[in-house]
C-alpha cells in the first residue's frame, strides 16, 4: 500500500542517492582511517587515508592468478557495491523515496542475502586456497547470522503492520521501535556488520589466511570490494533509521536532515565497533547464532506480535 506521506522522486535522482551513499562510505572510511592511525599512534591523523588508498589502488596494476574465473571474480568484487545501491533505493530520505515498494523489508532481505553469493564468488574466483577458505568462513557465518537477521526484520514489520518502509517510519511517531524491540535492533546491527564482513565477522578476511577473500584482489577490484564494504555499512545504517530509529522524526530540523544525522551516528558506531568486538570464529559463532540469537529474536517477535495484537 503506497504511503501518502512518502513522495516518489523521478529516476534521475538515483544518481544523487548513489552520490550520497558514496559520501557516507567515504566518511566511514575516513573515520576508520582516523581510528586506525590513533590506535597505531602514528604521526598523521589518518583522516585522509581513504583518498591515498583509493589513488594507490587505482594506479595499481591488476594481478591475476592461474586459471582464475574472471567473470565470477569480478562479479563478486563489484557485487557488494551493487547490493548497497539496491538497498538504498527503498529507504526513504525524509519525504522522498526512489522506489516506494510495498515489500521494502523483504527487498532488503533479498539484497542482503546476495552477500552470500558475492563474497563467496570473490573467494572462489581467484582460484587460490586462502581466498576460498575466506569464502567458506563467510558462508559459515552466514548460516549463523542470516536466520536471526530475517526474524529481526520481522519485528518492525509486525509492529507497524506493514512491509513498506515509509509506513514503518510513520508508525514510530510516538515511540521509536528501538525502545521496545531492542533485541531485534541489536541482531539487525550484527547482521549489517556481517554482510559488510566487518568487525567480528572479519575472519573471512583474516590475516591468518593472508587476507582471506581479498588475498588475491588488487587494483580496482580491491578498491571496489573495500568500498563496497563501507557502502554496505552505510546502507545498513540508513535502512535501520526508518526501520528502528523513527525515520525522520526529530525536533527543529527537517526530516531529511534527521535521517542523515541518525544514519551518520549509527554508521560511526559501526565503524568504531570494529576495534571493540572480538572476532567471531565461524565454528564457535554457529552455535551462538542458533542457540542464543535465534530464540532471543523469536521471543522478541512474539512480544512484538502480542503487543501489536493488543493495540488492535
Amino acid at each position, binding site marked *: *500500500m503506497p504511503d501518502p506521506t512518502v513522495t516518489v522522486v523521478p529516476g534521475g535522482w538515483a544518481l544523487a542517492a548513489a552520490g550520497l551513499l558514496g559520501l557516507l562510505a567515504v566518511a566511514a572510511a575516513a573515520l576508520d582511517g582516523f581510528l586506525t592511525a590513533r590506535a597505531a599512534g602514528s604521526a598523521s591523523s589518518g583522516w585522509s587515508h581513504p583518498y591515498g588508498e583509493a589513488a594507490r589502488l587505482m594506479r595499481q596494476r591488476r594481478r591475476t592468478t592461474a586459471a582464475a574465473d574472471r567473470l565470477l571474480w569480478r562479479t563478486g568484487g563489484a557485487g557488494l557495491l551493487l547490493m548497497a545501491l539496491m538497498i538504498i533505493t527503498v529507504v526513504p530520505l525524509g519525504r522522498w523515496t526512489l522506489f516506494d515498494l510495498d515489500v521494502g523489508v523483504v527487498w532488503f532481505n533479498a539484497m542482503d542475502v546476495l552477500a552470500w*553469493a558475492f563474497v563467496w564468488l570473490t573467494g572462489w574466483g581467484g582460484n587460490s586456497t586462502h581466498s576460498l577458505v575466506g569464502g567458506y568462513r563467510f558462508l559459515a557465518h552466514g548460516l549463523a547470522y542470516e536466520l536471526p537477521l530475517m526474524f529481526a526484520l520481522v519485528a518492525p514489520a509486525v509492529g507497524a503492520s506493514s512491509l513498506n518502509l515509509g509506513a514503518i517510519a510513520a508508525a514510530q511517531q510516538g515511540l521509536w521501535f528501538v525502545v521496545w524491540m531492542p533485541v531485534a535492533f541489536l541482531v539487525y546491527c550484527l547482521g549489517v556488520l556481517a554482510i559488510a564482513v566487518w568487525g567480528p565477522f572479519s575472519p573471512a578476511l583474516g590475516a591468518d589466511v593472508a587476507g582471506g577473500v581479498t588475498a588475491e584482489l588488487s587494483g580496482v577490484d580491491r578498491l571496489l570490494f573495500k568500498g563496497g564494504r563501507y557502502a554496505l555499512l552505510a546502507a545498513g545504517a540508513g535502512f535501520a533509521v526508518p526501520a528502528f530509529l523513527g525515520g525522520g522524526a526529530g525536533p527543529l530540523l527537517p526530516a531529511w536532515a534527521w535521517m542523515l544525522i541518525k544514519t551518520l551516528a549509527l554508521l560511526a558506531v559501526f565503524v568504531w565497533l570494529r576495534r571493540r568486538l572480538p572476532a567471531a570464529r565461524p565454528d564457535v559463532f554457529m552455535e551462538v547464532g542458533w542457540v542464543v540469537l535465534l530464540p532471543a529474536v523469536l521471543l522478541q517477535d512474539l512480544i512484538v506480535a502480542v503487543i501489536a495484537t493488543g493495540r488492535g
Partner: protein
Amino acid sequence: MLTHVVFWALAVIAVLAGAAVFIVDSMARASYALAVSFVAVGLQVLLMQQNYVGVVTILMMVMEMAVMAVYMVMFMGMNPALMPMSMVHDNRHALAVSIGVFVLLAAGVLLVPWPTRRGGPPVDVTAALGEELMGPKMLVMTGVGAVMAATIVAGVVLAAHRSRYDRFGDDLRRRPADDPQPGGVGR
C-alpha cells in the same frame, strides 16, 4: 512498451541461464547460472505485480544456490577450474524427451483458447495474500507448517551420522557432549 522489452530481456536471460547450467563446465558457474535464472524469473513475477512472491523467490533462490555450490564442491571432489565437467547419461533420449515436451507444451499454449481475464487484482496484493493464508486458506498454512517440520526432522535424521550415544556416551551421562566441533555456548 517498456514492460514488454524488460519482459523479453528477462525471459531470454532466464532460459539461457537455465540452459547454461548444463553447458558450463564449472560447478560455481553452473550453480550461479541457475541463481541468475531464478532472479530473472523473480523479476518477471514482479512485473506481474506479485511483489511479495517475486522478491521472496529471489531471496530464497540466491541463498539456496550459495549452499548448492558448496554441496557440489564438497561432493564432486575435483578441481573444476582444471578439469572439465561432463557427466551425463542417456543424453540423446533426454534431449529428445525434453524437446518433445517443449513442443507439446508450446502447442498447448498456442492452441488452447485461453479465457479472458476475470476480475481485477486487489488493491494491496501482499496484504490480500496474507489475509487469504490466515483466513479461508488456513488449511494450506497449517499443512505447510507440518510438512516443513517433518522435512527438518527427516533431513537431519538422514544427514547426521552421529546419534545421541555418540555424543553423550552409552549411559547418556557424559557432559559436555563429545562433539567434533566445539560450540560457542560451551554446552
